[in-house]
């Protein structure tokens, strides 16, 4: 299994795509930093939106999680699953004594490891970008928290934020795995992934128009049944002093992961990938 993981890992990192993504990360961090430097002029330093070195990794991630990281996950799934089946690379693996399910788990391990590594890189780059560009503050306020935090406590908060962000990406990957196993083409996988994101942005907006029809509880549940909305507003809510309905948010994440991930696994391991 270790060998299989190594093989998958090497095959993925051999691609130009991965190095292009790694090259984009610092650019994205610095672009976000310059953007927040401009946005700071309209915000008082007592607001949690005011970007300083300590909270910038979270603000940058909130910007990039919805766009860049979701796209990265789509690209990785399309590459690891669909592309390899299409181009016949998977056959080379299966010439050895390996089962589909072991290959699948190796791929999942490599996918999650890669996403985690890219997030860590971004974490580092955003601290660097913040250190160079943004103001330095010894203590700063956080969203939904009464007490301001210093740099060290803030570091712990940032790590938690990145951890939950990672879980949202895992949930999204679960959906993509099913799409990628069922769509036999790369463009199909990309399109389904994008369509899922756009649709998930769109229906909470739409529900906003029908607000009077729902109770607050129902509206909250509907709004946060959408993965991008959890990424957008749910994570800070989970990390608040008093998280509201944390059970629902974690339940939705787990639901996405299992409801789509398990059929994806069954599909991939039962289906004949040779044709």
């Amino acid at each position, binding site marked *: 299994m270790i060998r299989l993981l190594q093989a998958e890992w090497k095959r993925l990192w051999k691609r*130009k*795509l991965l190095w*292009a993504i790694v090259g984009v990360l610092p650019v994205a961090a610095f*672009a976000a930093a310059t953007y927040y430097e401009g946005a700071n002029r309209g915000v008082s330093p007592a607001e949690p939106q005011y970007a300083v070195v300590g909270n910038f990794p979270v603000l940058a991630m909130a910007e990039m999680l919805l*766009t860049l990281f979701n*796209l990265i996950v789509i*690209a990785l799934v*399309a*590459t690891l699953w669909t*592309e390899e089946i*299409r*181009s016949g690379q998977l056959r080379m693996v299966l010439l050895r004594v390996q089962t589909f399910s072991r290959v699948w788990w190796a791929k999942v391990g490599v996918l999650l490891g890669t996403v985690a590594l890219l997030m860590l890189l971004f974490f580092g780059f955003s601290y660097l970008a913040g250190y160079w560009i943004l103001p330095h503050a010894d203590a700063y306020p956080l969203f939904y928290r009464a007490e301001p935090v210093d740099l060290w406590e803030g570091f712990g908060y940032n790590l938690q934020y990145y951890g939950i962000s990672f879980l949202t990406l895992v949930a999204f990957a679960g959906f993509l795995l099913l799409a990628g196993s069922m769509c036999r*083409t*790369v*463009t*199909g996988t*990309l*399109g389904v992934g*994008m*369509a899922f994101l*756009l649709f998930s942005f769109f229906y909470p907006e*739409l529900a906003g*128009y029908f607000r009077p029809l729902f109770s607050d509880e129902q509206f909250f549940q509907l709004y946060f049944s959408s993965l991008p909305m959890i990424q957008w507003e749910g994570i800070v809510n989970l990390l608040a002093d008093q998280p509201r309905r944390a059970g629902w948010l974690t339940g939705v994440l787990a639901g996405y992961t299992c409801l789509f991930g398990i059929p994806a696994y069954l599909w991939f391991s039962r289906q004949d990938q040779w044709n």
Partner: protein
Amino acid sequence: MIRIIRSEWQRMWARKKTKVLLFGYLGLLLLMCRFLSAFKVSFYDPAHDVSLNSLNTAPFLFRELSFFLVFILVPLLAVDSFNGETRSGALRMVLIRPLARWRILAAKWALQAIVLAGLLAVTMWTGVLFGMWVMPDVATTSFYKTETFGFTGAMGYIIQYYSLGLLILMTVSGAAQLISLWMPNAVFSYAGVIAFLIGGIYVSPRMEFLLMGSDSIFKQLAPSPEADFIGLALGIVTISLAFSFLVWTRRDFKG
């Protein structure tokens, strides 16, 4: 030439994705009609709302659907037509025949243009007829900062609006074709198209017309235009066609 276009056409429909995309688009179109008829209100831009009537409804269908077109449908059609065919080997079968390379490329361009124009024509007429049937009847209407139009004037405005919409889609399509010729990997090219769409805003606010298509068209068609993207869009189209031509005629498709 007609035959080459027909062969492109057949190959396009042979892909199941094309059917899913185009029928999915028609489904969304009906959904949007349902949506607009429920509210009878739409927006020129985030600051100006407008109540819909029998003459001014058509542009707002494009407004609601432009995201799907620009982010999913147009890039996927272009990427499939170039990357997908190279990868699946379908392109070789075409290149085996003694045809000039540029003709095949011209056929691909023509087909993209025909499909997009067809889609927008369907959208426009759906909007016009739907407005007349469902929305409150009026004799005159006005659009964003324009004078009051009668029926013919409103139709003229709608046709201009949709022509500019077609220009925006062709810009996206041209860029997508060039990117997919450059990058043989479909994942790469699709990400490249999205980066072009979103990254453009960081380069210059004038590139907003790709994302905020409808808002830009309304501003462009106002009596004293507040936006001017026609020249820029034509420039991008021309540049991407010229470069695609250079890449296409020199490329070795045997690899």
